[in-house]
């Protein structure tokens, strides 16, 4: 067993920063609890730099084949880190009055670490550990407002669904081990086709794993927590939980399912149905929401459906992996911008409360517009680059019907995003709209700027994404 520690320096940065934030939280006085956020940002910055260093190196499997250091994992890692940094930025003012403010950042970092492990896992056990880490830290984040019934309810719902699906994932891992005699992806790739003597068990394993990862992605059939967490959880945590685990789980989904032999397990049509159900269900549920956070939660579900489109045609189209990464980047930027506006407006969530925002706070209104229109896929914003490459990949891979359905869903989604934007821009202000403060505003604007920049600068991104591999 070789231990090239250099390949996990970014992860170690997060572990150390998480522990350091905890120490700060234990000893810092109440008014200085926010310094834990600085510690967290420092850890994230170190992880970003060391990940960039790895990106210059070769794409390979490491730690005896259990850990992938390929461009797909590394880009997902960068995305997760940047998204986490934005979530950290959204938090200090929101949690200012919370006596346990500092520990929150530890949870945030460890949830991010779990997501990173999902993205890089090249061993089913590794994947299970990543999922569990992200889940456990995630439950805490969702229920962080202990005295708020809605937050507690969100945490419980998240926990119950996770408590159901995490064991299913573990069971799927056991089945895979039983079939191939190993949990290593490399071995599974060779061993699973030979296990065709028992296709039923293979199908069962695939279904169990899919359900486990669907939970982390917020995809059908394990999507029920998303809207509650978005509405009831602390808004910065909701921004984090609807973005970061999804990135890790989507890459994990793609990586694991490329191992399944399509001749014996017809997984592509099944994942296509999952994608179709997820996007349609999310969109229909979002349609008439009058609560912006809940609306964003359902929109996050529908966006998981689009992300799954890339998984459907992974390996079947060269465009699939670049499209997936680009889409995830775009989604993260757009969703964080939209949630950021909610945070900066002190959790303001009734749609009617957004009347006249453009008059009172033009920059926040513009950020919200950019975020939502990017989620729709209006060019030249990030979401457009993500969506058209996704559509092209799906059509290229022979799933044109899924692209048609996604188009129909996109039109539906425009309707509810415009239900948010119309009062912002067309109605007169009826009440003063107070804001939170500088940290949250800066993080929100950064996410909004990213939603523009990723779209305009898609060239270099696509260039490096298209050289990405999904090992093994």
């Amino acid at each position: 067993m070789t231990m090239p520690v250099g390949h996990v320096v970014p992860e170690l940065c997060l572990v150390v920063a998480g522990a350091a934030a905890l120490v700060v939280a234990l000893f810092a006085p109440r008014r200085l609890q926010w310094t834990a956020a600085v510690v967290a940002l420092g850890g994230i910055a170190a992880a970003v730099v060391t990940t960039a260093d790895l990106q210059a190196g070769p794409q390979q499997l490491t730690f005896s084949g259990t850990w992938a250091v390929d461009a797909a994992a590394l880009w997902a890692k960068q995305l997760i880190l940047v998204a986490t940094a934005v979530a950290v930025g959204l938090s200090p003012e929101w949690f200012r009055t919370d006596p346990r403010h500092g520990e929150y950042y530890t949870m945030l970092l460890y949830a991010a670490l779990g997501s990173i492990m999902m993205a890089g896992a090249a061993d089913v056990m590794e994947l299970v550990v990543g999922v569990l880490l992200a889940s456990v830290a995630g439950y805490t984040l969702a229920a962080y407002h202990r005295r708020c019934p809605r937050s507690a309810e969100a945490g419980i719902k998240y926990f119950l669904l996770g408590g159901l699906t995490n064991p299913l994932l573990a069971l799927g891992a056991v089945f895979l081990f039983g079939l191939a005699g190993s949990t290593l992806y490399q071995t599974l790739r060779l061993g699973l086709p030979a296990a065709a003597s028992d296709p039923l068990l293979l199908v069962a394993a695939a279904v169990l794993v899919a359900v486990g990862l669907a939970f982390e992605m917020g995809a059908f059939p394990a999507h029920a927590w998303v809207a509650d967490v978005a509405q009831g959880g602390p808004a910065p945590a909701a921004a984090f939980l609807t973005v970061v685990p999804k990135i890790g789980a989507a890459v994990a989904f793609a990586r694991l399912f490329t191992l399944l032999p399509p001749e014996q397990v017809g997984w592509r049509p099944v994942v296509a149905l999952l994608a179709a159900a997820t996007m349609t269900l999310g969109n229909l549920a979002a349609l008439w929401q009058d609560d912006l956070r809940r609306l964003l939660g359902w929109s996050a579900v529908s966006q998981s459906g689009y992300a799954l489109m890339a998984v459907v045609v992974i390996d079947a189209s060269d465009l699939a992996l670049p499209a997936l990464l680009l889409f995830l980047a775009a989604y993260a930027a757009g969703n964080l911008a939209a949630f950021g506006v909610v945070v900066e407006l002190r959790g303001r969530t009734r749609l009617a409360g957004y009347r006249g925002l453009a008059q009172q706070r033009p920059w926040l209104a513009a950020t919200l517009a950019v975020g939502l229109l990017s989620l729709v896929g209006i060019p030249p914003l990030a979401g457009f680059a993500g969506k058209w490459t996704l559509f092209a990949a799906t059509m290229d891979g022979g799933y044109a019907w899924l692209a048609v359905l996604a188009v129909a869903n996109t039109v539906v989604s425009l309707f509810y995003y415009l239900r948010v934007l119309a009062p912002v821009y067309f109605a007169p202000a009826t009440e003063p709209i107070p804001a939170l403060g500088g940290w949250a505003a800066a993080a929100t604007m950064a996410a909004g700027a990213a939603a523009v920049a990723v779209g305009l600068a898609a060239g270099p991104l696509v260039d490096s994404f298209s050289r990405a591999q999904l090992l093994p």
Partner: protein
Amino acid sequence: MLSAAVAVPLAGAAVLALARGWTERAARLFAIVATGVPAVLLVAAWLRFDLGSGQPFQLVEEAPWIPTLGVAWRVGVDGISLPVATMAALLFVAAVAYPEDYRGRPRQYFGWFLFLDAASLGLFLTLDLLVFYVFFDLSLVGMYFLIGRWGHADAQRAALKFFLYTFAGSLVMLLAILALYLATDPLTFDMAEIIAQQPLAGQATRAGLTLLGFAVGLGIKTPLFPVHTWLPPAHVEAPAPASAILAGVLLKMGTYGLVRIPLSMMRDTFSRYALLLGLFAVASIVYGALVAFGQNHLKRRIAYTSVNHMGYAVLGIAAAGALPSGQEAARQLALTGATVEMVAHGLVTGSLFLITGSFWRRAGEYDMDVYGGLASRASALTGATVLAAFASLGIPGLAHFVAEFQIFVGTFAVYPWLAGIGLLGVLVTAALFLQLLQKVFFGDLPERWAEFRDLVPSEAATLGLLLALVVVVGVFPRWLLDTIQTGSALLVATP
């Protein structure tokens, strides 16, 4: 030069978005200059345009955007896009110069107009399919905000319907674009390259579905019967200058797109389904004219005549693509006519919608029946409206006649009976415009309009410019036709 024609209004929009404390006058002057620059640039481009070059596109500029996937900023003009783009640029100057109630937000109002100007010119000038789509969508965003914010009572509903409906169309078109793109080798969105490759030739089903996608997407935008239903509410609720742009520029995106994409890039498939497209065009011609006749609302009536007029343009395009080869002269005539129709309709209907704005600001009424006898009070307004209405109904010597004459002559050669039915539309249009003039300007002057004000100088100057061009195109069409023919000749030539 062409890139600057897109960049200047876009930069102008950014300046207006960030500026603080500008007066209405300053914002308006700034907007007139910022829309004037691309108009001047395009006229200059026209002067540099070489009629005998034989190149498919001229004045080409290129810069990479997403090189890995074959996307680039490519602009250039041919005989089709140059006149349409120049007309659009001029109409934008007219629209921002025309007075309007800015609801206390002149800066944003002009900002969105400049944004829309950049999107429209970008669409007509680009030579990259994906960039074409980008501008196609951006035009929706700009128009959505203009209608929703500065429109009349039910504007938000109309804006929403407009956005959803046309966005659905544009996404269907996106799928068609991607189908075309995926069939290129190597993958590229370069229009010139795709035209040369004719990527889907010989793949019957896939090519048919792709063409259907383009027909639906561009047909909604044009709009063709039966997917025109977003148009009347959008026009009725939009502020008049936005209506003028919607009719004059945005609708052209549909017909221009038909010429630029399916007609050029899928010749075989287009010829197979051209008759079907022609049938829808004729249905639009007849339906648009008849329904327009039934409207008493000024804007709604003019809006439906747009359905009718764009029907002529599509009929010309269908005739031009009717055969993969043969009948070149007639098909070229039809395509030239269709292009002139786009220019003429932009100028004429743009003027008519601006005129409705003058009515609204003076009287707050769009109902034709409440007016009457205004000829005695407002002679300049009457003159302008009569000229525009006569132009619209196709009187010889004015722009539409040049267009429709060529469309019908060209179509007679390939689809005689379609042309015959289409002529009915001209009759109805004549009746409905004469009735409009009679109701509004002649007869007794109702008491309440005794103080009706004639055109103010800014209105008179703007309309004067547009209508002078209508007369010039009608009387001396040669310079325009020569330019258009360089494009239409290449498009109908047997490869």
